């Protein structure tokens, strides 16, 4: 009987404390942490991609309609099929290397029905990147607004449901390349 009494006492204390925690939970919380995001490190968007696998890269601005494309010729050199003039091979290689490295710092889960316009997708972003590989596979990256702290850009990748936070320098470089293509 003594053991049963102890058990009942513990049970009553448990119920009282559980009720207390419930009441405390119903009150306005003193701290609301939106998302328990953890520390991050920069990673490659396409970690398995190599420079040799890239057949063509297209940059397109939905706002201005401006497009810049580089494509690899049979001898391995880069050509700009749309832009007349002499294409800088160094700059083209830099663009391709940027595709290989394309760094992002964080991904965020988007729920179905989430409003993407606040991230800059209305529905299209400010920059569209398309990478075509030698094996015929292609990747599409849609770049949205800069983040509020101006450190990066939002991005949607292929058909993946996540929102990516791209590192700003790489995207700034691609935007400036589209504005001033390296064609003499």
């Amino acid at each position, binding site marked *: 009987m003594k*053991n049963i009494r102890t058990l009942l006492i*513990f049970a009553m204390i448990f119920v009282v404390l559980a009720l207390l925690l419930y009441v405390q*939970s119903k009150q*306005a919380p003193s701290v*609301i942490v939106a998302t328990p995001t*953890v520390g991050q490190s920069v990673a490659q968007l396409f970690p398995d991609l190599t420079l040799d696998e890239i057949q063509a890269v297209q940059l397109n601005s939905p706002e201005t309609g401006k497009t810049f494309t580089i494509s690899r010729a049979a001898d391995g050199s880069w050509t700009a099929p749309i832009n007349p003039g002499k294409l800088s091979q160094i700059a083209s290689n830099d663009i391709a290397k940027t595709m290989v490295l394309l760094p992002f710092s964080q991904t965020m889960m988007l729920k179905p029905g989430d409003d993407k316009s606040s991230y800059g997708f209305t529905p299209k972003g400010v920059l569209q990147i398309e990478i075509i590989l030698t094996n015929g596979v292609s990747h599409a990256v849609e770049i949205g607004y800069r983040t*509020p*702290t101006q450190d990066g850009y939002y991005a949607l990748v292929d058909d993946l449901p996540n929102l990516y936070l791209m590192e700003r320098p790489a995207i700034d470089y691609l935007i400036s390349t589209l504005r001033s293509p390296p064609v003499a």
Partner: protein
Amino acid sequence: MRGQRIVITRAHIGLVTSIIGGAALMIGVIGLIWQGGFTFYVALTLAIGIFCIAAWAIVTPQEFAGFITGRQARRSTVAIFSTILLIGVVALVYLILQRAALSLDMTVAQRFTLSPETEAVLQRVQRPIRITGFYTARSLDQREIDDEFFRLYTSDTNGLIQRTYVNPDEQPALAQRYGVTADGQDFIAYINPDGSTDLTTLAYIPRDTSGDNQERDVTQAISRLLLAGSLSVYFDTSLGERDTADTTQQGISGINAGVRESGLNTYPLNLVNLAQTNGDIPPNAATVVLVRPTTDLSDAEIAVLDRYLKKGGSLFIMADVLFNDSPFLKQNGDFNNYLWNNYGIRALDAAVVDPASSSQTALNVVSAYVFPQTDIGARLDPTKNPTMFSLARPLDVNTKTTPANVANGEVILSSDQSYGETDLKTLGETNTYHYDQGKDLPGPLPLVVWASNKQTQAKIVLIGDSDFVSNGSVSIQGNGVLFTDSMAWLSGLGQQIAFAPQMYGVGVPLMFVSSQTLDLITFLTTILLPGVVLVMGLGIWLRRSRR
């Protein structure tokens, strides 16, 4: 022992399922309350609990019935359930205490205790206030540090001041609504009865970049919120001053907006009209601001200001070098003499040239010396937060034969190598200057001075430049701080939060524990360790029971 067959009886299965079922139900109930609803893991835990209890009832129905009725419960089963409940009680106590935001400063120097000045301000908080911090994933450590500090405010107001943290990367629309421009920015606002943030009272909490005045910055923001709308500042517009509505680089719309953001009301004032009609400055005027009038004041206009000051008014004067016939505050002018005779401060007819402490040219003077013990100069360390003036007038303070009941002094000085160029005609026509011994004024020269009448409580701040508050310059280095701290002292805003030396440390706390680490410690101490003891006890009991 070796070769003995292990026999698992229904009683053993019943015991194990009862333990797992009891533990799972307890964890499920706590999880349900903790998470505020059903999550996948909560539902899974509860399902396991119900399944195991049901299995217990099916496998050993008599034992189950005996336990439920309390008549024939086995002592071991009761003891195990008592232990499970004890673990649950400890876990609940921990959760309740964790959410209660209790703080205990155990440092000898009371480093993590709010100052009496802050506590005096917090006693006036009657309405819920929310501090909203915008921190990205990159600033999680800073968020933890800041939260340790903000928690003190929550604790001191019994939860009236609440804290919310938002990742601006994840909620850009919300960040835009708050006007977030950088990582780690904090905002303060009242909370509506429905729990939403009252954005009409939203104010940014300016943070001293040196990080030395964290408590003062936050408390000042709270104090401004409490005072919002109760203080009025009047900008005179009748003497050709800079325009508070002018958004160009020369205008002063920025400081007008800044004053409003600080919770003060701003209104235009027509001093000329008041003088003509023998009117008075409105009695609710906490401060009257003259931002570079272009013409000097008449006797009637001086009389209006005199009446206002004698009633305890405050005057903020910014005077530029002017090249017109009757410039504002000309050295032997009536208003300059009035200030000298009644408050012991005046402007001199010269332009400060400082080859040693300047930016683009020697006429773009940078503060060289600051009196930090003054309310206005406290945040203007020339090495960290210099102020920059353009074509500034030197000032003068009569500290030897100060008028009765008047206290006055200097706030900012130019360097020892500076001088006051008195040949303003040549300067204006040819933009050339050189030091003339015996004619020009040797440095260092006062650039910002103050005066107050202890009897009437009148206060004056006189600054020999107005360019520093123009839209193009106010955001440079300490220019904005000079204006806001001058305004705070004059309007009485500063009196509400007069601070002793900052006491709170802003570095990483002595023992920094992230929330993830804290959760791990909780798990180890309240779940794992007692659980291990329970399992060990169970093992011993099983071993003995088999003998």
